[in-house]
């Protein structure tokens, strides 16, 4: 009798009711849709023709085409239909696609070298920032360093003004040192900006790792560096992964310095993408294609490190 009453009215305070679950679930789905929609729109636009891309009202259903990608990867010249008719038959599917618009392919575009620049500069500076940050964070965490707090504040203070505020001095310095428009210059610049973030983030993670672990290794005959590599790093892997993602996202997306300091050789994707619009009308599908490609490495990198990020939740769950 009492059990029946309890069943009909009371609900568990730990188990949520089906209705609450449904509400929470739909909120999450709604949020996900809102966030993902722009990305979906970009991916879709990359497969539209130029006229479909700017159609009003916007087209949700359309005839997909690879024009955007072809335009992104090639440089084309406009020719008369007579000239095109005299040419030998197109050798490839993309030759054929381009000729439909009275154009011929003149050569590859600069997107591949720019993409390679982004990869080298992005991952290079991320690696350096995380490497230096880990060593510095370990030192701050474990050794008695004179003025450690002041030094840490000094490191953090480099992030207090917007990086662009120092753009002119850096431009002048780089010109003196012949670092403008070089990959090395960009790697050093992004490393300098990221290393402060890396030191602070990683110091927090390394502080959490009990010293006893390394001390045990030291007593067992390992050197300080060996103990760092064998004991501390495996346990800081969560923090290192999170820091690496933050650093990569910054240097990958950075625009202001890239515009200012690179124009050719070392140009990265962010300043390159706007150029695509200018080459032959408003080629939104090509821009969308470039943007899609641009997002891929970050997504891949995050997915690869996801395992370590999730482990962060259980970090420190070992007996205390």
């Amino acid at each position, binding site marked *: 009798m009492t059990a029946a009453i309890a069943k009909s009215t009371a609900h568990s305070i730990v188990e949520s009711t089906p209705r609450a679950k449904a509400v929470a679930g739909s909120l999450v789905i709604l949020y996900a849709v809102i966030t993902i929609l722009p990305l979906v729109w970009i991916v879709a636009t990359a497969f539209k023709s130029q006229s479909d891309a700017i159609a009003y009202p916007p087209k949700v259903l359309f005839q997909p085409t690879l024009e955007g990608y072809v335009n992104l990867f090639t440089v084309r010249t406009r020719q008369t239909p007579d000239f095109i008719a005299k040419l030998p038959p197109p050798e490839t599917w993309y030759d054929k696609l381009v000729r439909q618009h009275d154009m011929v392919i003149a050569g590859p575009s600069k997107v591949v070298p720019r993409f390679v620049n982004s990869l080298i500069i992005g991952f290079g500076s991320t690696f350096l920032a995380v490497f230096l940050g880990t060593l510095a964070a370990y030192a701050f965490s474990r050794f008695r360093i004179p003025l450690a707090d002041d030094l840490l504040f000094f490191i953090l203070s480099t992030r207090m003004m917007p990086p662009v505020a120092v753009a002119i001095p850096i431009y002048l310095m780089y010109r003196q040192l012949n670092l403008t428009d070089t990959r090395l210059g960009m790697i050093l610049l992004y490393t300098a900006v990221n290393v402060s973030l890396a030191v602070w983030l990683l110091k927090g993670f390394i502080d959490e790792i*009990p010293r*006893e*672990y390394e*001390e*045990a*290794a*030291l*007593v*067992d*005959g*390992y*050197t300080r560096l*060996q103990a760092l590599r*064998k*004991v501390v790093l*495996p*346990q800081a892997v969560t923090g290192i992964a999170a820091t690496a993602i933050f650093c990569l996202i910054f240097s990958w997306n950075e625009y202001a310095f890239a515009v200012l300091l690179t124009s050719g050789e070392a140009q990265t994707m962010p300043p390159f993408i706007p150029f695509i619009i200018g080459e032959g009308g408003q080629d939104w599908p090509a821009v969308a294609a470039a943007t899609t490609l641009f997002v891929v490495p970050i997504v891949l990198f995050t997915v690869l490190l996801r395992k370590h990020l999730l482990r962060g939740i259980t970090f420190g*769950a*070992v*007996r*205390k």
Partner: protein
Amino acid sequence: MADVILRNISKRFGAVEAVRELSLAVNDGEFLVLLGPSGAGKTTTLRLITGLEQPDSGSVMINGRDVTLDPPGSRDIAFVFQQYSLYPHLSVYDNLAFPLRSPARRVPEPVIRQRVEQTAELLHIASKLNNRATRLSGGEMQRVAIGRALVRDPSIYLMDEPLSSLDAKLRAELRLELKRIQVELGATILYVTHDQVEAMTMATRIGVIKDGQLLQLGTPREIYESPSSTYVASRLGTPQINLLPARLASEIVLPPGTETIGIRTEHLQIAARNGGRLIGRVHRVEHLGEQNHVHLDYKGQTLVTLADPRQPLQVGQEVELHLKHPLYFDGVGQRINAMVH
């Protein structure tokens, strides 16, 4: 195997004097237990021996060699920490193999396997070798932690309260096992604890330490039966030794200078009144099954004694007290070595 000698070592952390002029010799094959409350300097003493801390003064000798300035790795020591002793990212096997895989040691992998398996056998964890270190129970973790020290064959094993995080039952179990292993291997162990039972049951000798100073060093029996001060006397024995101000016992003959009389609970005997000079009143009786703890009121002072559970005692009943082997202490708590009975 060898002996470890500490000569007048001192260590200060800022304003705190953790270890003061401490001298101690651990003999070959000995199980020496340092007993003291937390903050007494026990752990610091161990860390000074390992080299994880440098003494401000004094020296550490291992095997007749002065190692005061040597780095931890070259001192030939194994250390069992109080906690955080296992690497959570490694399996039990790899945890046990870790000390042997040290680049300084260069033990070939087949030898490592053999040593690890032997040790696992010794500690009854052979079936857990492939588990992750985090998938073990508390008792198993601590076995592995001890195993990490045992895989090596160092001059001395240092253990910093290795059983303190376990529950009472496991602690009792591992206590016996650790003693068995020590005897089997003939190992030299310096063991630190605040648990008097661990000290009494395992030690060859006990060193009682307080405020960074070694108060007394001796066999468990010596320390228990002949403590050098009221502090040492009250460190050992449950219930604690009765400390009776001498002025309340003017009825009996005391050696000159006595300020406090120490009577172990088992040495305080009670009997029905029969002309005895010390009379107490039963205040409370605790039944523990195999024995009773009887709390007596003696001139406003509470004394505790052990009694046979079958002995009929009423609260409020007056009994006469007999002191066997009383210990006499002076005004500052130091023992007076007088043979007065």
